[in-house]
């Protein structure tokens, strides 16, 4: 099994990197781009057999280490 974890800045938390990227996109003529946010992508393999258990464990990993709940949101997918 593999997990793909997406970590993004929480809404309302200052995201100067997202802002800088948005400005650069506009400078290149991509005026339609807005609400740009830069996050993190974590991919990992799992020694698990049960998808439901794997889901719980990955959620635990996110809460304990991969994301900081004060400033970040996360979501993930499990691929069997």
């Amino acid at each position, binding site marked *: 099994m593999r997990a793909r974890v997406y970590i993004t800045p929480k809404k309302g*938390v*200052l995201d*100067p*990197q997202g802002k*800088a990227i948005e400005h650069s996109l506009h400078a290149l003529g991509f005026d339609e781009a807005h609400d740009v946010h830069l996050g*993190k992508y974590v991919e990992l393999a799992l020694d698990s057999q049960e998808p439901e258990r794997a889901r719980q464990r990955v959620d635990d990993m996110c809460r304990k*280490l*991969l994301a*900081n709940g*004060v*400033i970040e949101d996360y979501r993930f997918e499990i691929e069997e």
Partner: protein
Amino acid sequence: MRWGVVTFPGSNDDHDTLYALDRVLGEEVVSLWHKDRDLKQVDCVVLPGGFSYGDYLRCGALARFSPVMESIIQFAAAGGLVLGICNGFQVLCEAGLLPGALVRNRGLRFICQFVHLRLEDTDTPFTCRCTSGEVLTIPIKHGEGCYVADPATLDQLERNHQVVLRYVDGSGRATAEANPNGSLNNIAGIVNRQRNVFGLMPHPEHASEKIQGGEDGLKLFRSALAAYTEREHRHAASVAPGH
């Protein structure tokens, strides 16, 4: 008083802090290794600046799980003094010993400069020898020093007088221009609710001798020393026979 300075892989102000405590202040100080669980009977633990674990994942996120931190979390819960400077402040936030988090500077640039800091509260062991409202000049050097917290947490910090240092201009005003990194409410340093854990982005150890450009950082170390000495006297008096 016995101080301990922690070294994580990637710490780089640990020796400057040891120097300030040992050579400048003449204090008893020991090094604590990140793999040690033994805090060597210190009275105050200092988490120094640097880039622990290469700042991988998030600043302080991996250091927070090192063996020494388990002991420090217990030490703090028992009322022990803990001081986190720069990366140390980030570690304390990641460990949940202080609320909020430190994110990338508003201007995206690493900033290395002296800043003015207004002393907001003297009712902490780390500021008890300072004067409320006095302006300290201490350097910052960080890329991720923008303090953030949700509105409720921020409100609590302000109401409980947990904001200890604020970025201000030369005349002590907390203006937007005087805020180097975008920190909410110009926050540069906070204490926990119990007031024994203090985290700040500025580096007091780099303002401990005139040759460094100033000595204001010593006021924080000397305060902790005074608070500790006073506590020991009180303790001695309370256990002495006849009292």
